[in-house]
């Protein structure tokens, strides 16, 4: 009876979501150091040209989630991770409370822990396997001010007690090009995040460019946070501040205070400041994503015309 279609169709969905097993890694010069099947995906640790990278994808050997240089572990190898740090340029006072959604190899949490030794940092990661690999292979070591919570990002945000101190900085890094958790790219979700933030709180989100998603994502952020800065590259970083973006003069002044610490990590205002843009290059009429309408993965598979 209909047991069949129900079971097979739904199981196929789950199967597709959790196992992209297949081709072994082993392109030229790449060395597979570690591989494990987590609840959600295949996690691979690869080494190539002195860089160690975390990868989720099985068949295509690009799309690193996180990379480190083991002989220089503080250096931010991937451009997007340096761009995310521009979130610190938005306020003069360093954040006292931070939330990072999406652990990856733990590079951003580790960096913020070092840059903000007194800040309380909550890291939310869905996949316990990713946490394990970050600790085992990427030198991720949460200090006493850091809390790692294994949870769905949205569930964590919803469940967070209102009595806790608000976040001065939120880094949203839960997406990759293969799969977007669609419930974390809706107006309702961003409103929930906004409600956890302090009055001048900043959100930096690692997002997409090059597909139709771009327009919808932009209008959705705009609807919740108003005008924002972007750093458009292969990844696009959206940086919004509650109460409106600071002037570029303020941004430059704040950037100077971080320069020394950033340089040790391979980032610099010389690169970051010129990237910061307010240009609106998306279709402002694109439909806003809501809990009712959120086909982000479908739209992300369509090249932007």
């Amino acid at each position, binding site marked *: 009876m209909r047991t069949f279609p*129900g079971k097979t169709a739904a199981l196929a969905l789950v199967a597709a979501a959790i196992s992209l097993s297949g081709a072994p890694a082993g392109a030229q010069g790449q060395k597979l150091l570690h591989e494990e099947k987590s609840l959600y995906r295949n996690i691979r640790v690869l080494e190539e040209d002195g860089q160690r990278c975390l990868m989720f994808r099985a068949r295509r050997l690009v799309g690193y989630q996180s990379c480190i240089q083991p002989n220089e572990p503080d250096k931010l190898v991937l451009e997007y991770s340096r761009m995310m740090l521009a979130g610190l340029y938005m306020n003069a006072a360093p954040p006292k409370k931070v939330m990072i959604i999406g652990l990856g190899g733990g590079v951003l949490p580790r960096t913020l822990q070092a840059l903000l030794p007194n800040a309380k940092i909550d890291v939310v990661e869905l996949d316990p396997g990713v946490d394990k690999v970050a600790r085992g292979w990427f030198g991720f070591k949460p200090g006493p001010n850091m809390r790692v919570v294994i949870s769905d990002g949205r569930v964590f945000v919803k469940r967070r007690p209102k009595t806790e101190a608000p976040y001065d900085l939120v880094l949203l890094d839960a997406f990759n090009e293969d799969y977007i958790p669609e419930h974390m790219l809706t107006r309702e979700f961003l409103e929930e995040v906004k409600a956890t933030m302090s009055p001048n709180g900043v959100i930096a989100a690692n997002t997409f460019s090059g597909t139709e998603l771009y327009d919808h994502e932009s209008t959705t952020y705009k609807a919740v946070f108003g005008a924002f800065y972007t750093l458009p590259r292969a990844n696009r970083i959206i940086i919004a501040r509650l109460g409106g973006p600071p002037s570029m003069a303020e941004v430059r002044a704040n950037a100077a205070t971080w320069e020394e610490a950033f340089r040790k990590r391979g980032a610099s205002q010389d690169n970051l400041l010129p990237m910061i843009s307010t240009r609106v290059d998306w279709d402002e009429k694109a439909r806003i994503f809501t*809990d009712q309408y*959120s*086909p982000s993965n479908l739209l992300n598979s369509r090249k932007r015309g």
Partner: protein
Amino acid sequence: MNRTAVAAFTVAGWSGFYVMLVELLSSRILAPYFGSSIYVWGAIIFIFMLGLAIGYLLGGLYSRHDATLRRLCVLQAASALATLPTVVWGDQVSGWLFDTGMDVRYGSLAACMALFFIPTAFAGMVSPYAVRLVIKDRETSGRTAGYLYFVSTLGSSAGTLLTSFYFVLWWDVNHIFAGAIAVSLALCAAVALTVGGKRSEIA
């Protein structure tokens, strides 16, 4: 094929379509509260399988007494109407269960039970009931049942694909629900009004 059979097959095919449409959309209702992790899918599939299983059981039992096309239509209409509270209160029910602070696995299971068990069970009743209506004799009973599963399951696959590939891209979740409920009611009304009183092929 006579009109009774055409009508029974159509309702069974649509019922298959409808169940999978609802199953895929159910994840959209639960995700804001419980995420879209493997356990949420586990809860969804568990409840839909359970609902269908109970539905098959009850549908088979119900078919023993005076089976008519009109009653078949009532079953599918009941499944559709039982989805209405989900559309109206799905968010509140999920929110309320979430606020109890229970483990997200059991929260999603409870939400799924509250919202989707009854519509699924009614939909599950359709297939065995339709079998009763279309079977002519013992000789062809297996073949006829095979045709019916074929149509109903084909409906399920179509409902799965169209919902996940296209409907969610075109419309709001609640609009898709409303459309599917409207189609169910229109189909059932049409069948009930035209050939509704027809009894099964064999007395």
